[in-house]
């Protein structure tokens, strides 16, 4: 393992210390327990957005903290969900009195820890909603698995919901917005190489010189299929079609019902994309992929979307949800209406995403 680190067990702490120095003015960092929060938190009267997850996906999530996006992000160990106490302390720090939205990527660990955190935060008198992101079409069904993973749609959801909160939407409306982005989002990824978890010291998996993992997870979980590498155009088309041709996706999730005062099972359906839809297109690098390759992929994605009657109204190309140094990429398409596009365009000022201010 060759990495520019000191001790593996200090990676996350030292990273956060670096961020506190390099983005002073935009964010602040709490080390015990670990979370990043808006320098101007709490913003009174604004719904506070909190996300988090394992580290190693930078700039997600700490890099998305700031005006117009997240109020706080909880950093777990590398690829390990953070713990409820982090989420609770973050909520206390950024609570502006209008409620807390926990944005949770659908992984067993994240879901359980954020549910515990929500219970704790409610016990302290806060209004809390947990919204799941589960957009990864590589996971086919939810009956036989832990359900689709949360990947690329997370960035889009955090941006759009963050803009809604900034505009003054109340907790119910921000939660609806976040749920809506997720309901319209689908992603698919692949890896050319494995990543190496610092504490593990060696690559999570081995791939032959001409092999890729199609349907890779962002934690170096092996994908659904191992296959021979093909040209960028062919791989892009495969990923794009698996998103575009994915049917309606229905599953049951746990959400908090404020009236009942309890968690309830809710069945949600993501409607398949169809001709004429407007989409936000996101080509994401996994950390070790040069920009030059992401642009080659975007070029083909644009063509495939065109052929399938999808109109790309906004795009994002870059490494925003990474898996350490993994080489690979993912594609995310989010069907977007006018409100979503306007909120996407709204000013944002975070370490990882910035425009308009």
């Amino acid at each position, binding site marked *: 393992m060759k990495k520019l680190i000191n001790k593996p*067990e200090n990676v996350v702490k030292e990273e956060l210390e670096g961020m506190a120095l390099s983005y002073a003015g935009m964010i602040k960092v709490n080390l015990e*327990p670990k979370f990043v929060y808006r320098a101007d938190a709490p913003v009174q009267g604004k719904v506070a957005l909190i996300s988090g997850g*394992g580290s190693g996906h930078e700039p997600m999530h700490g890099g998305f903290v700031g005006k117009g996006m997240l109020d706080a992000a909880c950093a*777990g*160990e*590398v*690829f*390990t*969900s*953070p*713990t*409820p*106490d982090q989420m609770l302390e973050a909520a206390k720090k950024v609570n502006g009195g209008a409620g807390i939205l926990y944005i949770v990527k659908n*992984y*067993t*660990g994240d879901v*359980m*820890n954020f549910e*515990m955190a929500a219970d704790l935060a409610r016990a302290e008198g806060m209004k809390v909603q947990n919204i799941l992101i589960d957009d990864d079409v*590589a*996971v*086919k069904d939810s009956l*036989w*698995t*832990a359900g689709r*993973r949360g990947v690329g749609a997370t960035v889009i959801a955090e941006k759009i919901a963050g803009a809604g909160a900034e505009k003054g939407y109340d907790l119910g409306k921000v939660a609806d917005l976040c749920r809506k982005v997720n309901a319209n989002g689908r992603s698919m990824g692949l890896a050319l190489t494995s990543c190496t*978890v610092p*504490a*593990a010291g060696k690559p*999570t*998996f081995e791939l032959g010189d001409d092999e890729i993992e199609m349907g890779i*997870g962002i*934690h*170096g*979980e*092996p994908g*659904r299929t191992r296959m021979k590498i093909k040209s960028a155009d062919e791989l892009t088309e495969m990923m794009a079609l698996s998103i575009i041709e994915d049917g309606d996706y229905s599953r049951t999730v746990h959400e908090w019902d404020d009236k009942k005062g309890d968690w309830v099972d809710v069945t949600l359906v993501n409607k398949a994309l169809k001709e004429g839809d407007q989409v936000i297109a996101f080509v994401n690098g996994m950390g070790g992929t040069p920009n030059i390759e992401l642009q080659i992929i975007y070029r083909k994605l644009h063509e495939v979307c065109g052929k399938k009657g999808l109109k790309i109204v906004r795009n994002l190309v870059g490494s925003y949800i990474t898996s350490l140094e993994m080489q690979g990429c993912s594609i995310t398409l989010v069907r977007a209406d006018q409100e979503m596009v306007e909120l996407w365009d709204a000013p944002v000022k975070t370490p990882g995403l910035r425009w308009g201010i």
Partner: protein
Amino acid sequence: MPATIGDVVKCLAKMCDVLHENKEYLTELDSAIGDADHGTNMDRGFQAIAKKLPDLGDTDIGAILKTCGMTLITTVGGASGPLYGTAFMQAGTALAGKQELEPGDLLVAGEAALKGILMRGKANLGDKTMVDAVTPAVDALRQALAGGAKAADALEQASIAAETGMKGTIPIQARKGRASYLGERSIGHQDPGATSSFLLIRTMAEAAREIGF
């Protein structure tokens, strides 16, 4: 002879050592069908427990187990943190106020722990998770105790059942947790969480034998 607070602390200390020794092994299992962190996660949590153990002697066994649970919840993260954390919390609640343990208390604690895991993770038997090791272990414990076995022997039976359960995760397809994303590719690999569960139960059995419980 009932087990004392000191015995429980000794057993917990042993668990910390065993997980530390098996850190790489558990992570390697998790590399194959997960994200290569289960050993690191468990070790981080149990090392945090190890640090607290010296100060836990003058409470009660329920409180000790709850402290362990809380420690796991706040230091492990991932899926295993809330699951093991809840297990210890529930076991602690079940044994609230106890200064020593009778063999029957083991079953009370074990059933509570399993209930906690099921409540939190909603896994079924055969989903290829820690449930596949813990469920048969609790069953074996119940049966052995019902048959009049002493604690160490009953735990021995539980450990054997956990090991069988753990090995039983190899040929099956995961339906819960991260390994479930692999679909059929998860077949042929032993579940890391079932493995750590077995290690913990085996350690209890060994500790019971040593203290003559």
